[in-house]
């Protein structure tokens, strides 16, 4: 990136104009802002804090599992630790991370708008997120909750005497934050596109966020009402989830997974959007099969609603329902595969530069492939009986969630860091940490596939002694992974103070976000842009100096 800086220095203005960061320095100018970029930055800070807390829980879990006995934590504490790891990571990190941070920041700029369509709603969703998060943190400090992040009944309604209500209320409130974000994105994409920005000129990141928003609007209210029913059941003890007096615990699972399965697509679709951006831009090639990737996002969002029963194969739902859900699970794998093929085809004969974001993108492709394919193991009704509730499942969804969403998020964060902050980060340390994360991740979670297949159940503090070797591998990997995650925190923060100023387009790319200054002014554009180019258009006409880009590419190779 230093090379880029040298080549590109003409574009850095000597006296930068007012940008969104310098437009007001008071606390009030941040807390009452309607600027989507400032809201995104506030999300960035909060979500990162929650990620850190969730990560500490993960570290505790891995430490406990170093030895077969439950010696570091007793079983009850261990239950609370993995529950809170799950709740914080799913509801406070994975779901908001890309839409609320990168989506919020970039979606309006990418479509040529001054702001999201409903800026006040956007600020409201941030506050709701804070309130929900605070409530969950409160429950956690009061003593936590031990039901698992899925809150399965009747344990959560009848037996658990931990802080289920407060946590549930936090999730209920938090849900409305993601509903409002989704609502805002849908409206913005429909009505705020700049002249000439047709649907098929939208960057694929916008498509992915649009599909995510559909899921958020259609799914999240269901989990809200489910958690509400759970809370009311704890108060009322009417027994609608209690089989002893005529209720049905499986109804809870149906309602819960109606949201929570589509929610795993909330946790991967935006990541896929970022990967589409990265693969195309760092291959300097128009993405292969734009329409297929765009529509596969929508297809995943829609079909994602029809497969929730594959979480319930062994829970007592009918065999017929299991067959249908199993079949549809195979169907939903198709659009994901379409994406993988198109990304690979885009790489073919591309002019690939291995910058930090691209390292993350390539890592994503490998890890998501493993995560996705093991999902098919679990989606097939026969095999799942052997694998349900083992570490195989834990490894599978970590490959998709961490290997997918977190890697994509980190890739996107590095990719747009110069745009968001106006500073260049250290490319050297960026690459080091990307590789540490990849290696550490595989070392952590690949052994868990084997552990699960050998029958190590999830959610237990102790395990059979012959499984210890693989668990030690896993814990060792976790420490590498942890180091890889801490590094960005250090060098990205460092870049804020000591980093070089970024030009408006340090990567030499054609997207609309690279045509505004870094960091962008409050209104994004001086006047509404008119879009005359296709997405990922690496031709000469879009005003980019591709000669320089090639030189830079050669410089990276040397």
């Amino acid at each position, binding site marked *: 990136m230093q090379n880029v800086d040298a080549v590109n220095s003409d574009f850095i203005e000597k006296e930068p104009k007012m940008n969104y960061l310098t437009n007001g320095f008071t606390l009030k100018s941040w807390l009452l802002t309607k600027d989507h970029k400032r809201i995104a930055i506030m999300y960035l800070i909060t979500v990162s804090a929650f990620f850190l807390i969730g990560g500490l829980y993960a570290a505790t879990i891995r430490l406990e599992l170093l030895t077969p006995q439950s010696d570091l934590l007793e079983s009850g504490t261990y239950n609370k630790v993995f529950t809170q790891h799950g709740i914080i990571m799913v509801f406070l990190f994975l779901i908001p991370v890309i839409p609320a941070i990168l989506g919020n920041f970039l979606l309006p700029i990418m479509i040529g708008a001054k702001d999201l369509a409903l800026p006040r709603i956007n600020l409201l969703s941030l506050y709701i997120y804070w309130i929900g998060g605070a409530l969950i943190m409160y429950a956690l400090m009061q003593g936590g909750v031990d039901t698992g992040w899925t809150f399965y009944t009747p344990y959560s309604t009848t037996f658990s005497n931990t802080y289920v209500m407060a946590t549930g209320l936090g999730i209920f409130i938090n849900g409305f934050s993601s509903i409002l974000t989704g609502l805002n994105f849908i409206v913005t994409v429909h009505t705020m*596109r700049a*002249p000439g*920005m047709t649907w098929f000129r939208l960057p694929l990141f916008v498509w992915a966020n649009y599909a995510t928003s559909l899921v958020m609007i259609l799914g999240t209210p269901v989990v809200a009402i489910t958690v509400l029913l759970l809370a009311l059941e704890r108060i009322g003890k009417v027994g609608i989830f209690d089989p002893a007096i005529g209720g049905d615990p499986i109804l809870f699972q149906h309602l819960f997974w109606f949201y929570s399965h589509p929610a795993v697509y909330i946790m991967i679709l935006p990541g896929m959007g970022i990967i589409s951006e990265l693969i195309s831009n760092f291959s300097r090639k128009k993405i292969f099969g734009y329409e297929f990737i765009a529509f596969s996002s929508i297809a995943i969002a829609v079909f994602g609603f*029809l497969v929730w*029963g594959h979480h319930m194969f062994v829970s007592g739902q009918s065999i*017929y*329902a299991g067959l249908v859900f199993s079949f549809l699970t195979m169907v939903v794998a198709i659009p994901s595969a379409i994406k993988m093929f198109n990304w690979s085809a885009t790489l073919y004969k591309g002019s690939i530069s291995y910058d930090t974001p691209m390292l993350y993108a390539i890592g994503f492709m490998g890890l998501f492939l493993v995560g996705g394919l093991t999902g098919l193991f679990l989606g097939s009704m026969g095999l799942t009986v052997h694998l349900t509730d083992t570490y195989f499942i834990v490894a599978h969804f970590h490959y998709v969630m961490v290997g997918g969403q977190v890697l994509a998020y980190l890739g996107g964060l590095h990719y747009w860091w110069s745009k968001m902050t106006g500073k260049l980060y250290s490319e050297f340390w960026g690459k080091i940490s990307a590789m540490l994360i990849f290696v550490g991740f595989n070392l952590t979670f690949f052994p868990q596939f084997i552990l699960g297949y050998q029958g190590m159940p999830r959610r237990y503090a102790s395990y059979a002694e012959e499984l210890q070797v693989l668990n030690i591998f896993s814990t060792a990997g976790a420490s590498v992974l942890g180091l890889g995650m801490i590094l960005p925190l250090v060098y990205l923060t460092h870049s804020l103070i000591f980093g070089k100023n970024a030009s408006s387009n340090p990567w030499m790319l054609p997207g609309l976000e690279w045509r505004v200054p870094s960091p962008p002014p409050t209104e994004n554009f001086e006047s509404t842009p008119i879009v005359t180019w296709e997405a990922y258009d690496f031709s000469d006409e879009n005003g980019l100096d591709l000669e320089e880009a090639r030189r830079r590419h050669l410089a990276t190779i040397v």
Partner: protein
Amino acid sequence: MAEQHNNHDEHHEHEEHIGIPGYLVVFGILVVGTIITYFVSLLDLDGMLFPGANTLVALLIAFFKMTVVVLYFMHVRWQSNLIWLSAVAGFFWMAIMFAYTMQDYLTRSTGVFGQ
């Protein structure tokens, strides 16, 4: 946005919608629907026609009333395709939730598929 600017002129054309007489007619339909629902529920349609007939009729009337409210009171009849789509999408998704939940409940302990 590009395509939306074209029809800028027709914006203020549809404001009248159906006017006061139209609203009163819709109101009348809703009142009559409510009264019919009540009295039909007193008849034993389950016995006269088939089990579940009472529920079916009540729901059909409710569905009809809803359609009238959505089309006229909520002005969807004059709205863009997008609004139509979102109005239908909500009910479609709820139907998905019903259908895929009930496909479990209705096929339990039926003796088919080994259970």
